[in-house]
């Protein structure tokens, strides 16, 4: 398959890339959100002073 064909997906690019694209986006958002969340939690635990 040529690169052009790959992106065109037989004319159904909207559907295929709409599906793959949104999925990729959502996964990325989830990873970023969870990473931020745990980073915050760790930061707060260290500075806020959980008694350990």
């Amino acid at each position, binding site marked *: 398959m040529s690169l052009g064909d790959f992106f065109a997906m037989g004319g159904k690019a909207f559907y295929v890339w709409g*599906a793959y694209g949104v*999925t990729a986006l959502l*996964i990325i958002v989830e990873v970023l959100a*969870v990473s931020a969340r745990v980073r*915050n939690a*760790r930061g707060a635990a260290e500075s806020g002073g959980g008694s*350990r």
Partner: protein
Amino acid sequence: MSAHSVNWFRFASPASFPPLARALVPWFAIPSALLAAAGLYLGLIVAPADAQQGEVYRIIFIHVAAAWMSMFIYMVMAFWSAVSLMFNARLAAMMAQALAPTGALFTFIALWTGSLWGKPAWGTYWAWDARMTSELILLFLYFGYLALRNAIADARRADRACSVLVLVGVVNIPVIYFSVQWWNTLHQGATVSLTAAPRMAAIMLTAMLLMTLAAWLYTIAISLVRVQAIVLERERSVSWTGPAEASQ
């Protein structure tokens, strides 16, 4: 309770769990990424176009993985919920809590990709077929869990209430699925299931399998990260209010 002062963190979680979880994450994250790369390569580039559906069938590689995970995650949540109720184990309840958002996400992805596949393949974005309708109801079950979790302020009560909710849900899922199937045939709805795959060449099956495994490993990895955050957040809120709050 003996004479020595009780480390009440042990009731919330083994204090060593977050570091353990953190250490485990790469062991799941990296294989997940590799499997996904392999699966995408096979599915998008190597696998041939389908005779009837052309290129658009390739959506299946995400759709099936997501749908499978959406169901599987709920089962795992039910397992951890049962454990948490039976053994009064808080970490188990936190695992269920950590899995829920990812489960909801996969359910949404299954619906989204199914819809985008349905339009070019069968002419409509939403055909009320049995599987998609059941998947939609599953999404509501996930939302219900998240909403209940959010609405109850006390973490311990939320753990137990959500555990009961998931167990009630898991018992009902087969009933719901069966009834939706019935409903569909009764009303002579879409006779084509939107997950009716084109006849699968071995390479397509392999790609599907790789993507499903990748999704599974991803779920474990992301849940292990999320559960760290949950444990730390709870420890923090307990430490602010003092040991009395943690008394069981």
